[in-house]
């Protein structure tokens, strides 16, 4: 479902090396590049959407036209021509995908090997056209029936629009309004894919939900929209992304994720993002402009964001929590690694509105090579947020003398009973730590891996177990060649 003709864009366009060997026929179902109301009507019609959703999209589009691209982030890229992007293309036929792993870039395969990914999954990740008879299909089927039993709704958002319109209509845009920001408005106008999750009252979701299992999520959409609702007392853990580098042809990704937690509900949202970061010279790579926000509407609700960001040429992402319910809790744990010419401007917002709300922010940044990264966060404690508590820690580790690490924390406090602490440190890998490891016979590369993993431990501990193991390995692979 990725617009294939984005490649018509000039020089800095997506991963050249990834494209080698892919035949990209222009699908008759693909819209010509450009964005106007007709395009949106077309998308809406293609998806058989109800009238209200079309109006909603158009409203977003009209708002988007009045907005300008944000420039405050500490990232640098050549301007994006929004009229050169095709905003709809029908699901790809298997014809344009690589026929077997032999056609896939060997470098990519090498990485899979290192990450220890099974062959079948390698094929899936590399976008190899696999037949319908595929292991994960059966996995998914058993998976689905189990969820159904529990009463959990987990389906593509377009299906949800069709089957549960009242839920979608009630919640979509209630956390991230259409005109929230430039990219969110664009997403609201043209989103084509994403997940919808609804956990009914008092249900603990029997398994970790993952986009990875959703069959059509193999090629994540360019404008994804995810909506997760945890009703009173419900619990869900949601995994997004994958440690393995994914084949993707879109340069611009503008996703929106909305989470709603009612009384006593808990949502745990984990992301591992490892999209194509561009080559050694900083050419190509994904632009990842994401709006993620959670609304802790109910009392004693809890939302926890965990992210491991190692991919993308540019990351612009601030998963936030609006702590509206009394005693609600927001957490943000993040590891971001930028190497080569990657740039990441990421952080979080914790808006304390309810009484006795608590938030924790742990952000670990690692910059290597020419990588540049910023932590940009906001902690706002409102007038009525009596007894609010925040703890923020953001640490940066620098490897090499041409990288940069920056911290921009905004703290706004309007209530005297609030307790707010912010700490940040920046340093290079401790020479004494390194020396200690070397003196014990550990090679320099292993020593650096050890130290980096220790540095990230607070965050990795928050990841679901399998993810944590993969994340460790991912850091090792990503750091290869960055040291020395």
């Amino acid at each position, binding site marked *: 479902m990725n617009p294939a003709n984005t490649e018509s864009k000039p020089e800095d366009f997506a991963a050249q090396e990834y494209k080698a060997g892919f035949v990209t026929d222009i699908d008759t179902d693909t819209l010509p590049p450009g964005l106007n109301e007709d395009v949106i009507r077309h998308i809406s019609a293609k998806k058989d959407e109800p009238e209200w959703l079309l109006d909603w999209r158009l409203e977003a589009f009209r708002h988007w036209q009045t907005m300008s691209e944000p420039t405050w982030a500490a990232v640098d890229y050549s301007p994006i021509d929004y009229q050169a992007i095709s905003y709809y293309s029908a699901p790809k036929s298997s014809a344009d995908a690589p026929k077997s792993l032999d056609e896939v870039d060997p470098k990519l395969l090498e990485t899979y090997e290192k990450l220890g990914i099974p062959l079948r999954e390698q094929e899936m990740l590399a976008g190899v056209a696999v037949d319908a008879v595929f292991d994960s299909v059966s996995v998914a089927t058993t998976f689905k029936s189990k969820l159904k039993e529990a009463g959990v709704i987990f389906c593509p958002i377009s299906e949800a629009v069709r089957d549960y319109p009242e839920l979608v209509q009630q919640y979509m845009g209630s956390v991230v309004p259409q005109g929230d920001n430039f990219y969110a408005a664009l997403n609201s106008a043209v989103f084509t894919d994403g997940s919808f999750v609804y956990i009914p009252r008092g249900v603990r979701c029997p398994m970790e939900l993952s986009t990875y299992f959703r069959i059509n999520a193999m090629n994540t959409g360019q404008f994804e929209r995810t909506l997760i609702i945890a009703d009173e007392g419900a619990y869900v853990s949601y995994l997004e992304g994958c440690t393995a580098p994914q084949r993707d042809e879109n340069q611009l990704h503008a996703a929106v994720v909305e989470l709603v937690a009612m009384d006593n509900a808990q949502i745990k949202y984990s992301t591992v993002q490892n999209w194509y970061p561009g080559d050694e010279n900083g050419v190509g790579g994904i632009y990842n402009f994401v709006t993620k926000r959670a609304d802790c509407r109910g009392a004693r609700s809890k939302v926890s964001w965990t992210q491991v960001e190692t991919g993308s040429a540019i990351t612009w992402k601030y998963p936030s929590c609006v702590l509206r319910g009394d005693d609600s809790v927001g957490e943000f744990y993040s590891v971001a690694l930028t190497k080569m010419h990657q740039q990441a401007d990421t952080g979080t917002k914790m808006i304390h509105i309810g009484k006795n709300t608590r938030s924790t922010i742990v952000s670990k940044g690692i910059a290597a090579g020419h990588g540049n990264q910023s932590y940009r966060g906001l902690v706002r404690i409102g007038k009525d947020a009596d007894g609010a508590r925040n703890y923020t820690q953001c640490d940066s580790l620098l490897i090499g003398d041409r990288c*940069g690490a920056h911290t921009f924390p*905004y703290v706004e406090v309007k209530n005297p009973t609030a307790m707010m602490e912010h700490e940040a*440190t920046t340093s290079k890998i401790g020479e004494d730590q390194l020396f200690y490891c070397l003196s014990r016979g550990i090679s320099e590369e292993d020593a650096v891996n050890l130290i980096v993993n220790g540095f990230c431990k607070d965050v990795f501990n928050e990841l679901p177990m399998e993810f944590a193991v993969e994340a460790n390995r991912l850091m090792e692979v990503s750091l290869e060649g960055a040291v020395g």
Partner: protein
Amino acid sequence: MNQVNPLVEQVREQGRLTFNRLGIPTMRLEHWKYTDVKRAMAPFMDHLGDPPAEAAIDTTAIDALAMENLDAYRMVLIDGRLHQEASALPQGVRADSLATLLAEKPEQGIEPLTTREDAPLFNGFVALNAAHARDGVSICIADGVQLDKPLYILHISSGGAAHICHGIHIGSQSQATVIEHYTGSEDTAGFTNVVSQVRLLQGGSLTHIRLQQESSRQTHIGRVSVCQQRDSRYRSHSIALGAALSRVDLITSLAGTGAACELNGLYLTGGRQHADHHTVIEHRAPYCNSREMYRGVLDGRSRAVFNGRVVVHEGAVKTDSSQSNANLLLSARAEVDTKPELEIYNDDVKCAHGATIGQLDTNQLFYLKSRGLSEDEARQLLTFAFADEVLASIDIPTVRRHIEHAAFSKLPHGVDIEEILV
């Protein structure tokens, strides 16, 4: 002053043009996001450049406002005009009136008036200052001079807009203490706009105390810009107690190897006061140190803003920097907005920063109460102790006592605590 030198006129014209373009900073600008100067500036907008009317302030009034018993070389400025020059300065030390300098040695005089527009935190007020600053003090300490007494610059405002510009030059291996004291009688509602340009040559050392104690209706805008050469030491104490709205920008550039700076700040606000402190520390050379500690106590409906930025440039290896900002909120309607920033382009550094906002430690309160202090006394004592940590590093006892006394009278029930302590 009657015939204006073309060099000076050029600087003035440049300032006017830049100000016309930039205007008064608005809240749309990132660095003025929390500070709205529009309403405070409204009464002055029509006559920004007009010199204030000659105020009649006699010696008794001046002495009443000055720090008592301070042994120093004193200069007095009234509404931005030099009223009393320093006398009996030792050899190698000059403290001239900027107005005189501009008339007699314009190429030297315009130096503190020129700020490049790409300098950090440059804004319309700096341009306005260049266009209209009539007077100020130009201090020049020759190489190798250890000044025996502090230079004390007392500013008194009596209303109207005063634009003041100071230049402080510390020669190689010299040492000096400069105190800028801003004050005025209680009922004045004027506007003070000060730019101080400090330059420290190799091994120079300066202790710079900036005490802002203006009337509670005054608007105070200040900028201190420091350039440090090799192995120089700059130590600043920036204290904001007065003014309805105050904003002080402090920019230090550690340009030479081994330079160090220590920035201390304290703001005590009450009523509807607004105090804004922005600092930028630029590490441009290897082996430089910076230490920064700002603290605030907020009461009533007051609001404080702190923005501390530390930039470590490429090549500034072995940088060691720490920064902290702590705030104590005493009232439910006070607000604090803090933003400690780090911007680092180099891996061989050790940087840390922290910010806290909160209330008094309940354990400490309990301890004092168990020793027989009342709840109120215990609270005031701890509040004072919190603020006093910043003042502890002021090594001139008279100055420290003066500020402590002012701080006591600012804190609720502070006078009673002063009796306990002193």
